């Protein structure tokens, strides 16, 4: 059944008013789907990822519903969510390097965490050890303090902890950005393996690095300025993007094997709008080379091809014509 998000809208409360960080987000993940979430800074990746598990002030729930395996999840209820966290929805945080209590031995910490959630540590221990093997961590780490582990080891340890109760949905937030390329690759591949072994059902990988997503994700969701721009299977996003923003974004990535002297790559001129008071209509309008009058209205996020969703009037019209 996977994950189903409908019309999710989350604001950030600030002094100067609400920042409309995420609006009208609707999408679905099929069983076992690994989705990458990408976009520039300030596009709304964290609000989307975090609101699915830890919606705390200054984040404010406005509207929308979230279903995991057909069951509605009360994301607006900070206390009530505790039942679902860890068991149904789990998180590998961006701050994985500091996520473990510095003065507890890791094994003891896991034990206390599990007991607090009503799981017997002893029962869990064999499985825990199996998973440590899987991510190539020695069993001794359970008897060590976090400070004794290297960055990559801590990252893998947190991955094991977060997925220990086989959550249906796992959210991995910028987990590879602090790692060296070799470790980055290993960690990303382990996440895929977690899915293969059905430790987790769905995985959402939040990152600014699209090339990582190309390696591991089944689908990619591109966000721009707090709204969904495009969601499609990875291959389609990379090879035949439909949204003008996605196209520009992909083409501005430095391709391997290109030299300035031979081919000059281009960025996207301009800056994303401020979300305190975003422009009406399509939020990419001001930077879009294709913008026309209709873009003053907000474009719907529609399926233009199988599993390929786009929020762009041009695509909407092409699609309508095709039919």
């Amino acid at each position: 059944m996977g994950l189903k998000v409908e019309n999710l809208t989350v604001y950030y409360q600030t002094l100067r008013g609400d920042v409309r960080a995420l609006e009208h987000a609707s999408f679905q993940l099929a069983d076992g789907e690994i989705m990458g979430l990408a976009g520039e800074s300030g596009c709304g990746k964290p609000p989307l990822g975090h609101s699915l598990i830890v919606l705390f002030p200054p984040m404010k729930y406005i509207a929308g519903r979230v279903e995991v395996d057909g069951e509605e999840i009360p994301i607006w209820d900070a206390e009530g969510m505790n039942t679902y966290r860890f068991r149904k929805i789990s998180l590998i945080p961006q701050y994985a390097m500091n996520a473990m209590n510095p003065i507890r031995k890791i094994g003891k910490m896991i034990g206390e965490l599990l007991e607090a959630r009503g799981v017997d540590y002893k029962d869990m221990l064999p499985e825990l050890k199996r998973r440590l093997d899987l991510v190539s961590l020695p069993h001794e780490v359970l008897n060590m303090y976090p400070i004794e582990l290297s960055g990559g080891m801590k990252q893998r340890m947190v991955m094991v902890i977060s997925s220990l109760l086989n959550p249906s949905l796992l959210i991995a937030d910028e987990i590879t950005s602090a790692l060296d390329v070799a470790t980055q690759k290993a960690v990303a591949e382990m996440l895929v393996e977690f899915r293969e072994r059905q430790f987790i059902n769905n995985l959402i990988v939040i990152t600014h690095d699209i090339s990582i997503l190309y390696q591991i994700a089944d689908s990619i969701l591109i966000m721009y300025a707090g709204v969904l721009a495009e969601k499609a299977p990875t291959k389609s996003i990379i090879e035949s993007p439909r949204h003008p923003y996605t196209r520009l974004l992909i083409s501005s990535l430095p391709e391997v094997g290109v030299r300035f002297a031979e081919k000059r790559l281009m960025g996207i001129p301009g800056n994303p709008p401020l979300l305190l008071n975003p422009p009406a209509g399509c939020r990419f309008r001001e930077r879009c080379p294709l913008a026309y009058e209709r873009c003053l209205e907000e474009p719907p996020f529609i399926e233009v091809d199988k599993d390929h969703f786009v929020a762009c009037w041009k695509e909407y019209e092409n699609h309508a014509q095709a039919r």
Partner: protein
Amino acid sequence: MLRLDKVSKIYRVGAFGGKALLAVNKVSFEVHKGQVVSLIGESGSGKSTIGKMILRLLKPSEGKITYNGEDIGGFEGEALKNYYRQVQGVFQDPFSSYNPIFKADRIFRVVHEEFFPQVSAAEWGERVEKALSSVGLNPAHVLNKYPHQLSGGQLQRFLIARALLLNISFLVADEIISMLDASTRIDVLNLLADLKAYGLSILFITHDLSLAYYISEQAVILYKGNVAEQGAVEKIFNNPLHPYTRMLMESVPRLDRKWEKGVRLVDRDVENLRTGCPYYQRCPVAEPRCALSQPPLVEVEQDHWVACVHYESGADVLKPPALAG
């Protein structure tokens, strides 16, 4: 014009400098006029330390850095200031490069006060506007603002404009685009390439081989402070020799190729390896002799050097497939 000659940097760490950490080990290279040299490595490879030594923010422990033949270690007072007129740096984190409590354009005022006190305010204003235009910024949009009101890309261009005001001939660009959004990255990179066309020499410090390939002529691959491979960037990119370089090429996620499956990381158990190849611990093709002595940098083909026993004269040149597994 800028030359490093067996430069090393040893950090004293721990209480009362108890332990020594070799951050940079006998690195030599040269940057010619109008040339871009890339310094490539992971975090902890010593690449930023080299940049800081060139900028005189750190002192080399051994070796010599010369600029147009003069030892930069000897520059004091006016001579140092004169050096800074010609050699400047831009750093990784655009937000950390600005004092958050002042407006961003204060960096221009400081340059005015320190280097050009004789220039009138009006003329300086014109120069600033010209410099901003030449880095693709609209002065009216960016002047008189606080750093947090500008984007990372704008801030990095500001810093390049600052360097341009000094009429520099050498720029140390330390990971200047790694914290920028994808959409603005390439513009800043292009700007550097354009400046190079006007005769500026650039030391481009990065962890991304493809970026180095995009912009530079020469490359130095560093691992734990040691040069693993160095030479013409085309040769390194098209024919990587050192196992470390190959690992980098293989692990960097790319949009045109998927990762090879099932490559396991090597992590040999070595306690305080003092002798031997610095990459021994992680090298998939290491041999027992690799733990004994550090291989010297040898020229394998013209302008392509590598430090690996497999390429020492007389040794069998390693065939690429052997490295993959």
